[in-house]
């Protein structure tokens, strides 16, 4: 019987096979893996290196350069708070303090029930309706503490339904 982890590596192999022919394929491959698995497992690195005829150090170097790529599994949902200037002018510092307290985590951490990972982001281009938050692929504008709590409540309810 294959474990979930082995299935994940099978997914990695599929992503690599579908994209490795592209010029400059490494970023598309890393995005492809993270889109499917939520992160890039360490065991994917030698597989990518072999397919692209590069060293493992080179692959690791690229993964660690870009803030978006992660090598540990995230929570069920990723919540990103914008820390750029326009959002700060509209109170995003107070919002992030509230978010950290409400979730009981700091940036780059995941809540203990593994429902939400908290990340920082620098500009979502929604600067005219700041402060902005990204929840998975959705962007939400004019977020205050109250709106943030409602978003989190919705995410946690969804998590329970899935389980």
């Amino acid at each position, binding site marked *: 019987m294959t474990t979930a982890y082995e299935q994940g590596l099978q997914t990695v192999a599929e992503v690599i096979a579908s994209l490795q022919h592209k010029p400059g394929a490494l970023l598309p491959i890393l995005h492809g893996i993270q889109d499917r698995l939520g992160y890039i497992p360490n065991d994917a690195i030698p597989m990518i290196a072999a397919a692209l005829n590069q060293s493992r150090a080179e692959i690791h170097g690229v993964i660690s*350069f870009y803030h978006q*790529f992660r090598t540990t599994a995230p929570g069920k949902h990723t919540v990103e708070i914008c820390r750029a200037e326009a959002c700060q002018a509209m109170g995003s510092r107070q919002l992030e303090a509230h978010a950290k307290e409400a979730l009981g985590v700091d940036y780059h951490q995941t809540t203990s029930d593994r429902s939400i990972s908290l990340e920082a982001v620098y500009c979502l281009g929604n*600067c005219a309706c700041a402060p902005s938050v990204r929840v998975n692929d959705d962007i939400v504008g004019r977020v205050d503490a109250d709106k943030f709590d409602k978003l989190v409540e919705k995410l946690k309810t969804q998590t329970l339904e899935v389980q």
Partner: protein
Amino acid sequence: MAKVFIPRDTTSLAMGADQLVAELTAEAAKRGEQVEIVRNGSRGMFWLEPMVEVETAGGRIAYGPVSCEDLDSLFDQDFLKGETSHPLCLGLTEEIPYLKKQQRLTFARAGITDPVSLDDYQSLDGFNGLKKALKMDCQSIVDEVKASGLRGRGGAAFPTGIKWQTVLDAVPTKDNQKYIVCNADEGDSGTFADRMVMEADPYMLIEGMTIAGLAVGADQGYIYLRSEYPVAHQILNEAIAKAEAAGFLGENIQGSGKTFHLEVRLGAKAYICGEETSLLESLEGKRGLVRAKPPLPAIVGLFGQPTIVNNVLSLAAIPYIMSQGAQAYADFGMGRSLGTLPFQLAGNIKRGGLIELAFGATLKELLEDFGGGTFLRPSDACSTGRRPTGCLHA
């Protein structure tokens, strides 16, 4: 049947446009009203989003910002017929002073069209520049861009025509390959003009890049898009697929025998990749480290080959220049700064949004006449550009 427009751009979605569409559809069904909803781009009046427009014989009537709670009263007061009595009614969209006072060239179609409709695009001058370019030789296209006075809109204001000439004259070292790269890594806070082009009028960027390809003999283009823009990513991919299917991209464009392929590549949260040489490194699948210049990317660019790297707004200005002629573009602006510039108001301001004007507007006009002053507390200073430009006292 009433025709209603509700935008699908990032800001409208962030302010609840999808939920509004769902509830408006349900309410219309409940009341037995026939409604056709078009998901257009934003007009750039972001403090009014989601802004709902209704088509009438006299033009579109706007309502905004509309929340789901307003739907009952809007239906009661016959907004589907363009009745103007509702407190959220803004009158004719085109007559709203914020929009009326602008000089829109690059953003002429923004918010008017469904961004992925080829029919809408073509009904408003779309692809006319490309059709002209297909009949011209490379040097004539480059000459037209030079004559327009267009300068790079990424910030350095380098004359676009000169850059194109350099790439046209450069000799590739491998497979006769040149590239067109669009820098869509719009990372500075307070900027969203590139996003608005990509989300409201993606075919304009596609057309501009295709013309650039014809001008210098490049058959491959990449849009390097920041991953913080998921909505733009979705819309660009839809538009590219439709343009390919209709013969405006890919092999044998419009039966001309010319080829241009276009692909969107995502960044991965690295601010430095907005710098053109680190962007090229990233496209090649490497860490986004800055290259030494010279050699210029125009001569040794992507994968070592001659490459045009232009900002979204520079490429988006090309279809107008080709279709209306270089002089029509050069007639806007002043001195050596020709054409128009999109200003973006954001942060602590009442009416945040995008304002396209010819070069020469004053800060006071922008902040007070358009912006309407501050949103929260009074402001002591403002930033007039990207982070490196610092702040100005009020």
